[in-house]
């Protein structure tokens, strides 16, 4: 599904990603963990097509295509979804209008006719139920006046509406209370299918109690320094990131 090979990227000339390689196969959930400033969000930004990040080296192949050549909107229509760490408030644009435009853009891309108003509203209702989102949210402007938890739930709702092949959740769990965390996690679990994949970026192990990853990567200083199964997350929770940092330093000395 996604093959990242030796990816290097910088922001305003400052090197952030220093050679990342990883492969995500259909049906897999990958967790990317790491301390603050390690480059987790930059990686998400590169994959989603954010222009302020400059890719200096490496390749990203998504479903056989060169992802880095695609515009942000084309990536979305090809099935990539980014769950934002800080979802943006857009006053004056209703959730209904926003989602209708997005869903119909996806449909157009697939050669389908736009949904009728009633079919669309039914879809909204079904997906709201699926992800247990408060029905009132849909009538408001995009994220405007939403609490932190509501914003994150709204990301999961949008993910449910757009049915991505590859969802990248950038610290979707941060700032959530336990109930909201469970809703977010349930959303992921309900939307998980054998043919779609998730990259879950998280600082804490907490979310991984609910969303069980197949692979856990540790990102440190722009590089993946450790890759293992789900047990790695538990180990990190127990020992913190210092343990990894030490291990790297020791390796360097040796």
């Amino acid at each position, binding site marked *: 599904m996604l093959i990242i090979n030796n990816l290097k990227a910088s922001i305003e000339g400052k090197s952030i990603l220093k050679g990342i390689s990883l492969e995500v196969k259909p049906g897999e959930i990958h967790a990317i963990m790491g301390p603050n400033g390690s480059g987790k969000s930059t990686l998400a930004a590169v994959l*989603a*097509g*954010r*222009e302020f990040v400059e890719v200096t080296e490496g390749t990203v192949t998504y479903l056989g295509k060169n992802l880095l050549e695609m*515009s*942000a*909107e084309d*990536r*979305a*229509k090809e099935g990539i*979804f*980014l769950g*934002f760490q800080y*979802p*943006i408030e*857009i*006053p*004056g*644009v209703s959730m209904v*209008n*926003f989602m209708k*435009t*997005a869903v119909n*853009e*996806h449909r157009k*891309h697939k050669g389908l006719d736009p949904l009728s108003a009633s079919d669309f509203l039914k879809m909204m209702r079904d997906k709201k139920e699926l992800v247990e989102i408060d029905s009132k949210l849909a009538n408001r*402007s*995009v994220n405007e006046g939403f609490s932190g938890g509501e914003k994150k739930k709204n990301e999961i709702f*949008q993910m449910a509406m*757009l049915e991505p092949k590859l969802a990248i959740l950038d610290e979707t769990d941060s700032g959530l209370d336990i109930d909201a965390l469970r809703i977010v996690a349930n959303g992921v679990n309900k939307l998980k299918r054998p043919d779609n994949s998730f990259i879950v970026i998280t600082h804490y192990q907490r979310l991984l109690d609910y969303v069980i990853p197949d692979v856990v990567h540790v990102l440190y200083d722009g590089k993946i320094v450790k890759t293992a199964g789900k047990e790695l997350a538990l180990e990190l929770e127990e020992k913190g990131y210092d343990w990894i940092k030490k291990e790297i330093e020791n390796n360097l000395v040796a």
Partner: protein
Amino acid sequence: MNGKTEITEKYLDLYKENINKISGISSPYFNSFRESAFEKFSELGIPAKKNEAYKYTNLNTFFDHDYENYFMPVPADFIKAEPFRCEVTDLDAYGIVLLNGFYPTLNEKLRQLPNGIWIGSLNEAAIQFADKFEKHFGKYAKSETDGLVHLNTAMASGGLFIYVPEGVAMNRPVQVVNLIQSDEDTFTQHRNLIIAEKNSNFSIIICDHTLSPQKFLTNAVTEVFVGENAHFDIIRVQNEHNNACKITNTFIHQEKNSVTSSNNITLHGGLIRNNTYHYLGGEGAESYSYGLFLADKWQHIDNFVNVDHAFPHCTSNQLFKGVLDDMSTGAFNGRILVRPDAQGTFAYQKNNNILLTDDAKMDSKPQLEIYADDVKCSHGATIGQLDDDALFYLQSRGINKREARLMLMFGFAHEVIQNIKIEVLRERMDSLVMQRLKGELSRCASCMVKCG
């Protein structure tokens, strides 16, 4: 030259040559204001750059031009405009059609609507409703700095009159479609008077449309009296061509516990200046002043707002927004005056603008003068670009850049539109704004009426 500009001199001459003709069609009471207004105008002149309130708006090219017609249309013009008598379509409103600001005086000069509401020619009302006319006319349109208000009083030859009696709640709004049309370059000055008595409830929508390509200059004055406990809403929709200049001066006088709103929506126009004066003249009055403009090419749109808190416990709120494309320019000047006795005042002001190009320019000037202690007052102004983060958020959901930009601009504009209380009109405005943003707005599309 007396220090007066050549342009001002031109209008002084015009007055002297035509005063008999103008006075001939107006009532003696109206005419009794003219001489002192003329003196005031000759003292103040056509506003120039040195006038602080007109610092950003240069009116010279329009006032310097020699128009072929300066006065009220003659019956022949009204007859010519007859084919444009339009039918209001989906908006459930009482429709009135004006020509260059004037009520057609061919047939029925005053029309009675249900519940004793009267609407029609100002000159006719000055005779038929002399007591009401004389109680209100000339009482609210005052300015110590703007010569154009006085030029209008001196030379206006007619306009629209609306009377809403005490306790009458209008179930439908009145929609005034003002057609601006002539075979000749035309300068019109019309004068409107709206009286909404105690406990009444009234909404009016005024739509201005230029229908012919001639050069037009309009200097209009509207006086509005809103009685105790009355509710009054005025919505202006401006759609004029690039060679037209419109100056509106609206004076809203409010009594105790009255609630008013004014909404100026400028979809298109060469040079537009809206002066809106809110006088909170009784305890507990509330006033809401909104404005939205969408400008491109060399257009210039200027909103000037003056909110006068003269009594305690009044509330005012201003929200003005502009979207500027190409080389267009805009200005906002929002004054809040809280007089010494106006304790317990709440006064807010917000002005947000989006510049779509590097060449577009906006000047925003808040002006707060507070002479009371117990006051809650705030203001904020922004001039910026479309938010990159918001743009990316929309794109990341598969919405292409062009559409995403449109959505953001629309959302920005909608914050003003959403204050329109009449749902059909709100939806209509949303769709007109969208058409305008897409560059698809045609003259008749905005007309809300079917012409033919």
